């Protein structure tokens, strides 16, 4: 009756003879120029519909989002930078805990927090629970101007109105890699999400954090690497890297009461 329920219990037998990965990212904030290529590529790759006229920066869908930040010093000594924010793919996701109908699932094989739009009924509790604001709601029907539907990516299903969506590390690409691995009979595969591929300064490194030798794994352990809001205990798998202290200090809120370090709107 509930055979199609993709919970961890049913997925467990598959795990036994398959490699368990923990896909993650390290984003080098010193390399990020805020160009927005990752945002653009992400939207195209994941079939995000063009924004309607009414849509604002608070109702649009930007599964990858670049925030401008600065060190709150007066000009001209002020230093500025950018923080690209996809879903943090938390190891202990607060969104998965709250979803009433299991539309969110931490995939035990990839470590990716999956979102099932077909299951979601749009209560938006997960959005309230996510401290990274990485979840987006489809406030309108997705529509593509005539001819533009030709640009749709056949590997990714567009989402309907009234459901929540988020970055899932390009699951379309992951599925293609998994399919190829199954054909080849080789479980030793990896893949590259669209934002990683698009970044002109190679600021994003992606890979399996379980693989000790991988670049991502090495970088994640670097003393200059950090995670946002680590004290909340959500265990994000997206790390950030910077050799500048002020950027590393962005990780947690300023306990001395300096409210916000975002000068303006998001990029």
């Amino acid at each position: 009756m509930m055979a199609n329920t993709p919970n961890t219990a049913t997925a467990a037998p598959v795990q036994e003879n398959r490699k368990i990965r923990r896909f993650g990212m390290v984003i080098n904030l010193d390399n990020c120029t805020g160009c927005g290529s990752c945002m653009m590529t992400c939207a195209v790759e994941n079939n995000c519909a063009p924004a309607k006229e009414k849509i604002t920066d608070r109702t649009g869908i930007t599964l990858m989002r670049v925030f401008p930040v600065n060190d709150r010093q007066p000009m001209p000594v002020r230093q500025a930078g950018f923080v690209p924010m996809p879903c943090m793919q938390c190891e202990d996701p607060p969104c998965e805990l709250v979803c009433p109908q299991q539309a969110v699932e931490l995939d035990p094989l990839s470590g990716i927090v999956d979102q099932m739009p077909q299951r979601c009924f749009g209560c938006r509790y997960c959005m309230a629970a996510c401290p990274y604001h990485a979840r987006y709601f489809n406030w309108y029907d997705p529509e593509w101007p005539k001819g533009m539907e030709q640009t749709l990516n056949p590997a990714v299903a567009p989402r309907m109105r009234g459901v929540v969506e988020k970055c899932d590390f390009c699951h379309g690409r992951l599925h293609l890699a998994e399919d190829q691995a199954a054909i080849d009979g080789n479980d030793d595969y990896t893949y590259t999400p669209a934002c990683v591929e698009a970044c002109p300064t190679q600021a994003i490194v992606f890979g399996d954090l379980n693989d000790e030798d991988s670049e991502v794994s090495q970088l994640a352990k670097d003393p200059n690497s950090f995670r946002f809001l680590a004290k909340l205990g959500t265990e994000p798998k997206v790390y950030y890297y910077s050799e500048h202290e002020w950027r590393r200090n962005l990780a947690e809120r300023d306990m001395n009461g300096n409210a916000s370090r975002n000068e303006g709107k998001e990029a």
Partner: protein
Amino acid sequence: MTGTITKPAAIATVEKKWIVRGHERCSTARFMGWLAPWIGLLLLGLYATYLCFRYGLGETHLDNRFGFGLWIFLDLAVIALGAGAFFSGFLLYILKWKEIKAVINSAVVLGFLCYSGAVAVLAVDVGQPLRAWFTFWHPNTHSMLTEVTFCITVYLVVLTIEYLPIILKNRKFKSIPSFLVFEWELHKLMPVFAGVGVFLSFFHQGSLGGLFGVMRGRPFAFREGFSIWPTTFFLFVLSAAAVGPSFIILTTKLVEKITGKRLVKQDIYRVLAKTTGVLLTVYVALKSLDTLLWLNSTSIRAGVAPWEFYEFRPFGHATLFTEIVIFGMIPALLLLSRRLRERPGVITLGAVLACLGVVFNRFVMTIQTLALPTLSFDEFMIYLPNWVEYAVFGGVIAYAVIVYSLSYRYLNLFPQEMELQLAPKEVNDVSVR
């Protein structure tokens, strides 16, 4: 032409036969005049609902940061106020406080309206309402919202069952023997339903608090607790139980004011006021303790200096003071004092403040939680609902007023009404619990 003149008179004659024997009610035309603006508001609400269903929730001012807005806040408030139904059921059927019988019918109708209204708003609020049943099919047993959904659905059924005998006691329905038998059988089972209702209510009022308390990602709302239940679970149960009786006081007084009749004896108000006073005192004490724990421990461990939350205007320290002192401590003390309870004006004031307190608490938990930044470079955000959101909720208020008005006109909501009508001066103020 003759037909158009005689028709209203004929309708009025027939309509009068539905009114409880011995109850004085206004003329049919006057009643229709009272209903007309509410029907107008209901139609406006239905139009706003149509806009949301046709074009999507982009028609509202909700956004990705304020996924919960006016609707969820008011739903929580209305469900807390509607707790009067379960708590008076608890007092009457479980603790056997016979005085409560004077208001139990009205409380059940109010409870039914609060819960059905809240469910109606939720149906507009969620993006894909036709998938609401998924929660029953693929329930995530770790989610507080699953518990809320299960309990509210079942409790709404219980409230409907509790409402049914009140409807079946209508003068016309009573003339059908099978209805009478059914009503009698239901009546015998009522303590069981009331017990089930109390159990379900305790749990979902708590789960509604749990909704916010479990959000680890929101240090402003997150609370530690016992086992799987954060402290907000217990605080929500207690606050709802505390203000439920106050809401019954206010609605009964409002109906008395509008109809110009005395519907219950003064001592009922005192009993209800004392109940609120005692429970609210316990609530304020525990809420203060919880706030201190959160300020000094929970929030700091989550990496946030708690006083920072109060640096974002309009949510200053005054918010906390208003919630705990003005809307908590003051009504608690007003209603706790036996001397002050002798004055009907004090009871009204205390009940108003207590109800405002629970509404304000639900506002803080919903709106302030989402407005506050989490990341170091986040902005504090403002959200103002638009007319569609107000209209949908206005429609639900109108629905509640219409159904309550019909219930008051044709059903016996206040069993003491007739007694007070016959002897308006003598029968009064017998005992004070």
